[in-house]
C-alpha cells in the first residue's frame, strides 16, 4: 500500500517544488495569477452550490424513505441504487443528449415558441450533471442516520401536544444533523476533485481545478505546476476533512 499509493503521492509533492527547479514559484504563481484564483473560487463556489442543492433535494427523499417504509421506500431505494451504480460516464452522456442543441429540452422550447439558449457546455449544465451524480451519495448518508431515529421520539412529541411541524423541527431535524454533516462532507469533497463531468458538460471559461491540472500535464507537460495545483487541491480537501474530524470525529463517517 505504501509503495502503491504513498509513493506516487510523494512524487507529486516533490515535483511541485522541484520541477523544473527547486523553488516555491509555482505556489506563488497560483496565488497571484487572477486566472488561477478564478479557478479556485469557481471550484469552491461550484462545490458549495452542488452540495446545497443535493441537500435540498436529498433531504425530503431520505426523509420519506426512512419514515414511510413499505413498498414506496423500497421503490425509492431501487431508484437510488440504479442511479448510484450506473457509471457516471453514462449519466454524463445522458445529460449531453438532454441538454444538447438537438435534445428534448431545446425541442420543447422551440415548440413553446422561443429559441433555446445554449444549455450544454455551461456552468449550469456542469452543476446539473454533478448534482445528479452526487445526489445518491447524499441520500445514502442521510438515510443511514435517519433510519436509526426512534419513531417513538416523534410519537412522544406528538402525545405531549406538539403539532407535526414542531415535532419535525425540534426532534427529527436535530437528530438527523449528523447525516446532514456526513452527506455534505462527502459531496463537497467529491465535488472539489471532480474531473470527468465538468470536462464533458462544463464551460471552458469556468474550469474546475481538476481540469486545469489535467490540462497542464496533457497539453503543456508542466509537471511541476500541475503538481503544485494538486497539492493545493489536496490541502483544501484535508482542511475540509480536518474541520469535520474536529466537529464529529472521522470514525463516525462509516456509521
Amino acid at each position: 500500500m505504501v509503495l502503491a499509493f504513498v509513493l506516487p503521492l510523494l512524487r507529486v509533492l516533490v515535483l511541485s517544488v522541484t520541477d523544473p527547479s527547486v523553488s516555491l514559484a509555482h505556489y506563488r504563481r497560483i496565488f497571484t495569477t487572477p486566472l488561477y484564483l478564478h479557478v479556485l473560487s469557481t471550484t469552491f463556489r461550484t462545490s458549495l452550490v452542488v452540495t446545497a442543492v443535493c441537500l435540498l433535494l436529498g433531504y425530503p427523499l431520505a426523509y420519506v424513505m426512512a419514515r414511510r417504509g413499505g413498498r414506496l421506500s423500497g421503490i425509492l431505494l431501487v431508484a437510488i441504487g440504479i442511479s448510484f451504480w450506473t457509471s457516471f460516464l453514462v449519466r454524463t452522456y445522458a445529460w449531453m443528449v438532454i441538454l444538447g442543441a438537438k435534445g428534448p429540452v431545446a425541442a420543447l422550447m422551440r415548440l413553446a415558441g422561443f429559441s433555446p439558449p445554449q444549455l450544454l457546455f455551461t456552468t449550469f449544465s456542469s452543476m446539473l450533471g454533478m448534482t445528479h451524480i452526487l445526489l445518491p451519495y447524499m441520500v445514502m448518508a442521510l438515510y443511514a442516520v435517519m433510519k436509526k431515529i426512534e419513531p417513538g421520539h416523534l410519537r412522544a412529541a406528538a402525545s405531549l401536544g406538539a403539532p407535526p411541524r414542531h415535532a419535525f423541527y425540534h426532534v427529527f431535524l436535530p437528530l438527523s444533523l449528523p447525516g446532514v454533516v456526513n452527506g455534505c462532507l462527502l459531496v463537497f469533497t467529491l465535488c472539489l476533485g471532480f474531473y470527468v463531468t465538468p470536462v464533458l458538460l462544463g464551460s471552458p471559461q469556468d474550469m474546475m481545478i481538476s481540469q486545469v491540472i489535467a490540462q497542464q500535464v496533457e497539453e503543456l507537460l508542466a509537471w511541476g505546476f500541475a503538481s503544485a495545483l494538486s497539492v493545493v487541491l489536496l490541502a483544501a480537501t484535508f482542511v475540509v476533512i480536518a474541520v469535520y474530524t474536529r466537529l464529529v470525529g472521522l470514525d463516525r463517517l462509516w456509521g
Partner: protein
Amino acid sequence: MFPVAVALVVAVFLIAPLVIIVPMSFSTALSLQFPPPGYWLGYYRQYFTDPRWLVPTLNSFVIATATMLLTLGLVIPASFALVRHQFRGKSAVNLLLMAPMIVPLVVSALGYYNTLGRLGLAGTHAGVILAHTALSVPVAMLAISAALKGFDANLERAAMSSGAGPLRTFWWVTMPVLRPGILVGALFAFLHSFDETVVALFIAGRKASTLPKKMFESVRLETDPVISVVSTLLFLAVVLAALGALLVHGRRDHAA
C-alpha cells in the same frame, strides 16, 4: 402528502435522464439528436464487431477481475489484523488504507502517471491493475471489516475446543460466515475498477485502454454514436442486477 410528492419528483429526476439513452441507442442519427429521426440496430452491430470498442471492453473485464482478486488478497488479511488485533501504529495503518478514498482522483492519477512512467509500467495492464487495487482497497475494506466486526468469535472457539485445528476452523467456520461480506467487498472492488475513469485516462495509454477511457474519449472527441449502445448496455446491466437483488431479497423476506 407534500414530502412524498417531492421525494417522487426527485426520484424521477434521478432515473428519467438515464432512460433516455435507451431509445438513443437504436437511433439512426449520427449526432446527439432526440427524439431520434429513425430506428435501427446498426450501432449494436458496430459495437459487437469493432475491435476499437471490443478490446477496451475486454481490457476492462481483465483489469477489474485482476484488481478484485488482488484487492481481496490484501484486504482479507488486513481486516483481520485491524479488527482483531491491537498493535502500535494501528490508527496510522487505518488512515493509510482509507487515504485513496479521500485523496482526489486527479491527484492520485497525476502521481501514478509520473511514477508508473518511471517504472516503465505506464500504458500496461499491470500498471492499471496496481493503481486500481490501491483505489479499491478502501471500499472492499469497509464491506469486509464490517462483516468481521459482526462475527461472533465464540464460533471459532467452539470449533477449536471440538478438536478442529486453526486452518480447518478458518476454512469451515470463519469463511462461510464471512462469505456474504467478502462477496460484497469483491463486487465493490470489481465495479470500482470497471467504472474508474480518471486514473485510467492518465495511465492506461493505447494498449491497456479501458472501456470508460474509450467512452470518455469518444464523447469528448468524436461523439461516436456507439457510445449510446455501450451506455444502454451498462444501464440495463445495473437495472437487471437491481431487479435480481430485489427478487432475492423479496424471497428471503418471504421465507423469514
